[in-house]
């Protein structure tokens, strides 16, 4: 059903990519492989993509989700205690992020948004580097090339174009890796996401558009962003799409594998809508009680991604007490390291403000840097001048 008939497109438009794609299926029914009650249901199209997932890997996905939820909770606590300036919780979206990120190959390249901390964690970003930008110690916490994850994008949807351009580069290089853009339901209203889909379709670029529909863009409900199901929009661009239960880690993983496989084999872009829910506030500065109903939260709490996988594992006898204890210990250890790494993070030096604006010397900026350094030096002891008081 998920046809792979686009042909191999070059970076140039035209050819097969311009032909009618009316037989390419769009969104459709929500795909669910694990019910909220923890029951595994079979699915003829998706199941083949999960045949190699062992019981052990199922346990590892569970551990990932528990750990990232713990990182999220610890970061929220650190913000409440004044150690972070702000934090965007991902509570409730663990399956969407872990299921998709664990489907990727190391040489795939991710372009995430600011809430995709679970994705960053799976790719190997150190948890204290994840919070670095939220503490104000840097604009971004990691070197993208060490983990093949771009820095987290704050301008909504802008990264969808970066992923598409990166994918055009992959195509030019003759490689079979894939670029993945992560964004939310709100981003689908942005011009950049729509332009990205135009470019991706025209050039048949190996890119996956992974949309976490968490139902809320700060205070705006998804119905304000889209009059139809978000996944159904992709058809207008000639891009095949899937709509999956974003709280079901297996459905997400299967969908991502289908999309990656298509991209690797010249089939072009795919749009995935992972239907999930933002259980927390937009950020720690937000107050969702002003705009959303408590009943809605309760409904979604019953569909929790971790609880349902836990039930499934228990049913299958895959979650003995020892494993439960190991997972809890892993979460504790990561949280402890995150806390101490955050609190002990060295402050940047005042003159770091001038670094890396340009890659080569710049006479105007060099002059400002020189003058500010003289100003700081006018306080006498450079160490004293570097303190916050002195720098004023």
């Amino acid at each position, binding site marked *: 059903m998920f046809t792979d008939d686009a042909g191999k497109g070059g*970076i140039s438009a035209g050819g097969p990519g311009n032909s009618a794609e009316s037989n390419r299926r769009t969104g459709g029914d929500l795909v669910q492989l694990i019910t909220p009650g923890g029951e595994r249901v079979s699915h003829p199209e998706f199941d083949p993509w999960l045949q190699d997932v062992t019981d052990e890997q199922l346990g590892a996905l569970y551990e990932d989700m528990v750990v990232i939820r713990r990182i999220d909770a610890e970061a929220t606590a650190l913000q409440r205690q004044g150690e972070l300036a702000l934090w965007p919780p991902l509570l409730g979206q663990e399956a969407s992020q872990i299921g998709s990120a664990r489907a990727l190959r190391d040489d795939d390249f991710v372009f995430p948004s600011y809430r995709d901390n679970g994705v960053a964690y799976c790719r190997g970003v150190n948890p204290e580097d994840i919070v670095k930008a939220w503490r104000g110690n840097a604009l971004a916490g990691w070197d993208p090339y060490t983990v093949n994850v771009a820095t987290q994008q704050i301008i909504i949807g802008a990264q969808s174009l970066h992923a598409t351009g990166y994918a055009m580069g992959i195509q030019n290089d003759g490689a079979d890796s894939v670029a993945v853009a992560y964004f939310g339901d709100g981003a689908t209203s942005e011009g950049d996401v729509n*332009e990205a889909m135009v470019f991706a379709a025209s050039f048949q670029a190996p890119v996956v558009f992974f949309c976490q529909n968490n139902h809320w863009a700060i205070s705006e409900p998804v119905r304000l962003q889209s009059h139809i199901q978000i996944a159904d929009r992709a058809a207008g661009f000639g891009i095949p799409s899937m709509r999956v239960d974003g709280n079901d880690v297996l459905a997400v993983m299967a969908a991502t594998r289908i999309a990656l496989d298509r991209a690797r084999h010249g089939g072009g872009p795919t749009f995935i809508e992972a239907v999930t829910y933002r259980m927390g506030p937009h950020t720690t500065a937000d107050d969702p009680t002003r705009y959303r109903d408590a009943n809605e939260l309760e409904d979604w709490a019953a569909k929790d991604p971790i609880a349902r996988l836990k039930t499934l594992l228990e049913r299958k006898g895959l979650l003995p007490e020892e494993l439960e204890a190991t997972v809890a210990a892993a979460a504790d250890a990561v949280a402890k390291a995150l806390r101490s790494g955050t609190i002990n993070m060295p402050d940047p030096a005042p003159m770091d403000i001038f670094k890396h*604006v340009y890659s080569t010397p710049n006479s105007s*900026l060099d002059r400002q840097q020189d003058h500010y350094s003289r100003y700081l030096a006018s306080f006498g002891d450079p160490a004293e001048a570097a303190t916050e008081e002195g720098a004023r």
Partner: protein
Amino acid sequence: MTQMTFARAINSGLRKSLENDPKVVLMGEDIGALGGVFRVTDGLQKDFGKHRVVDTPLAESGIMGTAVGLAYRGYRPVVEIQFDGFIYPAFDQIVSQVAKMHYRTQGAVKMPITIRVPFGGGIGSPEHHSESPEAYFTHTSGLRVVSVSNPQDAHTMIQQAIASDDPVLYFEPKRRYHDKGEVDETLDLGAALSLEKARVVTEGTDVTLVAYGPLVKTAKDAALAAADEGVSVEVIDLRSLAPVDFATLEASVRKTGRLVITHEASQTGGLGAEVAASITERCFYHLEAAPVRITGFDVPYPYSKLEMHHLPGLDRILDGVDRALGRPNSLSGLEG
């Protein structure tokens, strides 16, 4: 040395960059089979293929955003914005992404993107085809901004811009595209005047006249006319608008004591304001008169029957020179 038009000189520079670096990719609207609406990319797609000279969908943010992705992947995209007034849909990607990426990633991710923009008026165009948006970009940290005034610089500086690891806005004076000049295509890029340097194009002693892009020619003509009246005007082609080569400007103003700057862009918050303020700060005690700005008015770009009133011409520039020299001028008798 070869005699060629301004447009051909850029074309030849692009060709050399494409030949020398397989990572150079041209992107834009109508740049392929058509060769661009001004034919600047004429023949390049035929010779380098559709993968290196890419006709894009009509979406400027899309072009710029995908260029960012290509740069992430190690490419050197050269983006053509078809007309100055069409750059605004790409503004967010330029200002929020291209300009900030290197700083954001502490130098890990470079954005060696060249953004070519045919700019300025004087060709009788409809709306959005004659603008001078350079000040938006000179105000944006992380970008380099240059403007070229003659075929040799056009040829050399496009290659230097492409070779730069920083993003460069490259403003091409569209009304000069058909002007011809001698171009040495064998000029060594390293030996050529570097991208961020200004150049004294006419030496003089009485007043410093600063121009860039399309108005360098007008300024040189004005200097010739002034010489007839015994006034010695030193004309400086700014070339780099960000950063401004203040060392060259300072040296000139210390000599002449008087400064006139001219550009087609509107006056308020324009480059002339920055040059006037900085030169006043740096050489106040060498100035014999307040700096003078001769610029486009603070109006939206006017309909073409009126554009010659908007664009600084030779006579308005000379009137500004008279003002700087305290000679009788159109504002004589007015305070301030």
